[in-house]
C-alpha cells in the first residue's frame, strides 16, 4: 500500500456491506457494533480509585476525583469514531467534560508549557498528542457512552476521547497528562503506529 497505486483485485466488486449514511475515511468499514481492542487485560478501576492528574511541571500537580468530575460542567458529544483496525462507528453519544475545563481549573489557561502532551492510563498505556489537538472542544474526559456508564472493557469508569484522530489516541482508563516540549511516542506510536493519526489522511503507521 505504498503510495496510492492500487492493485486492482480481480473479481472484487465491493459494496457488499451496507453503505454508511455518510462518507467515512478511506480504508474504513461501517461498523454498527463497538469492538473492544486492548493489547492486554481489561483494567479494573473503580470510581473511588479513579483520579485524574495534570502534571503542571516544577513539582506542581492538579487532581480530580470522580466526585469532582461529576460536579464539572458536562457536555454531550455526538461524534464518529474511526479505529486504525479499520472499523468506523458513526453517531456515537458520549457525555463528559471538555479538557479545556480541566486546563482552566488547573489555572493553565493559554499558558501551557510545551506543545505536546502524553496521556497515561491506569495500567500503563500511553499516547502522545499535540496540545492544539485537545483544545477548543476537540478532546473530552468522558464517563457515559450511549446514555450508560462506560463499561470497563471500553475504558470505564472514565476514558478520554479525541474523535478527530484514530481511536488509539483516545486512551481508556485515563489517569494523567504531562506536557512535553517535544513530541515523543506513546505505546502504539513506539510500536509502528503513526505519531499523529489523522484518519482522513490515513495516517495509520510509520511512514504514512
Amino acid at each position, binding site marked *: 500500500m505504498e503510495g496510492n497505486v492500487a492493485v486492482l483485485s480481480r473479481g*472484487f466488486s*465491493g459494496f457488499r456491506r451496507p453503505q454508511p449514511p455518510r462518507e467515512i475515511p478511506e480504508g474504513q468499514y461501517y461498523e454498527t457494533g463497538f469492538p473492544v481492542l486492548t493489547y492486554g487485560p481489561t483494567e479494573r478501576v473503580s470510581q473511588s480509585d479513579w483520579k485524574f492528574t495534570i502534571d503542571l511541571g516544577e513539582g506542581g500537580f492538579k487532581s480530580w476525583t470522580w466526585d469532582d468530575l461529576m460536579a464539572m460542567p458536562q457536555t454531550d458529544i455526538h461524534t464518529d469514531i474511526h479505529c486504525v483496525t479499520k472499523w468506523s462507528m458513526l453517531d456515537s453519544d458520549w457525555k463528559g467534560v471538555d479538557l479545556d475545563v480541566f486546563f482552566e481549573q488547573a489555572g493553565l489557561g493559554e499558558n501551557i508549557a510545551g506543545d505536546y502532551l502524553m496521556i497515561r492510563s491506569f495500567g500503563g498505556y500511553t499516547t502522545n498528542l499535540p496540545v492544539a489537538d485537545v483544545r477548543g472542544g476537540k478532546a473530552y474526559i468522558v464517563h457515559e457512552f450511549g446514555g450508560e456508564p462506560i463499561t470497563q472493557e471500553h475504558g470505564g469508569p472514565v476514558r478520554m476521547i479525541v474523535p478527530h484522530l484514530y481511536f488509539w489516541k483516545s486512551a481508556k482508563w485515563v489517569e494523567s497528562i504531562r506536557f512535553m516540549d517535544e513530541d515523543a511516542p506513546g505505546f502504539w506510536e513506539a510500536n509502528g503506529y503513526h505519531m499523529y493519526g489523522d484518519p482522513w489522511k490515513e495516517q495509520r503507521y510509520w511512514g504514512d
Partner: protein
Amino acid sequence: MESITVETYRVKTFRLLLPLWQPFRPGMHYDVRLTAPDGYQAQRSYSIATGPETRNVVDLTVETIEGGEVSPYFHDIVEVGDQVEVRGPIGGPFTWDGSMGGPLLLIGGGSGIVPLMSMLRHRNSTACLVPTLLLYSSRSPGNVIYSDELDALSAAGNGFEVEHTFTRKIPDGWNGFARRVDVEMISEVSDRLGIIGRAFICGPEGFVETAANALVNAGIASERIRTERFGPIGTR
C-alpha cells in the same frame, strides 16, 4: 498467490510470495487491501501463520465470515497466481520470540490460533525448549485448524503440550475439556504449566475477556498478558 490450502470447511491458508519479504516477530499481521474497478477499497488485517524462519513467503490463514467483504473474497474468488495487495509486517505488543522466554501459555479461540501458530512454528524451527502450553478452543474436532501439525509438535517431546476444548460437538470417547473456556479450566492448565512467564490470548472478545480476567485473578501480572480480540461486525 502461491498456494491455497483448505484447513477446515470455514478456514483456508493463503500463501503469498512477497516481492520484498521482511523479517517479522511471531504474532504480527499483514494488512490486505482490495480494490474494485470503480476505486472502492476494503482493508482488513490478517495474522501471519508462518514463523519468521520460513522466508520469502507468508501464510495468512483466513476464516470466512458470512456476509463479510474481504474473507469471502479470499475464500470464493482468489486463485493461485492472483496479485494481492498487502502491507506489513505490522504489530508489536502481541509478539513473542524465544529471547522473551517463558514458560509460555497460549490460549486460542477458533481462528485466534493463527498468530499463536506463528509463535509455535518459530519455537519449533529454532529448537527452543521454553515450556509451552496451548489451550485451544474449537466448536468441534472438525474445526481444529493445523490439527495434524499440532499433534506432531506435541508428540515431539520438547516441552510443548496442547490441550483442546470443544464447545459444540464432542467426539465419542473424548475425555478432555468439553465446554467454553472458564476460570476453572484456565486455573487447571495454568497449574500444569506452573509459573507463567508470558501469556498470549487471541480469539473472540468474550473468550479473550474471560481468559484474561481469569489469569489476572489468578495473580498473573497484567504486563505478562497480551491479548488480541476480534469482532463484532455489527453490520456485515
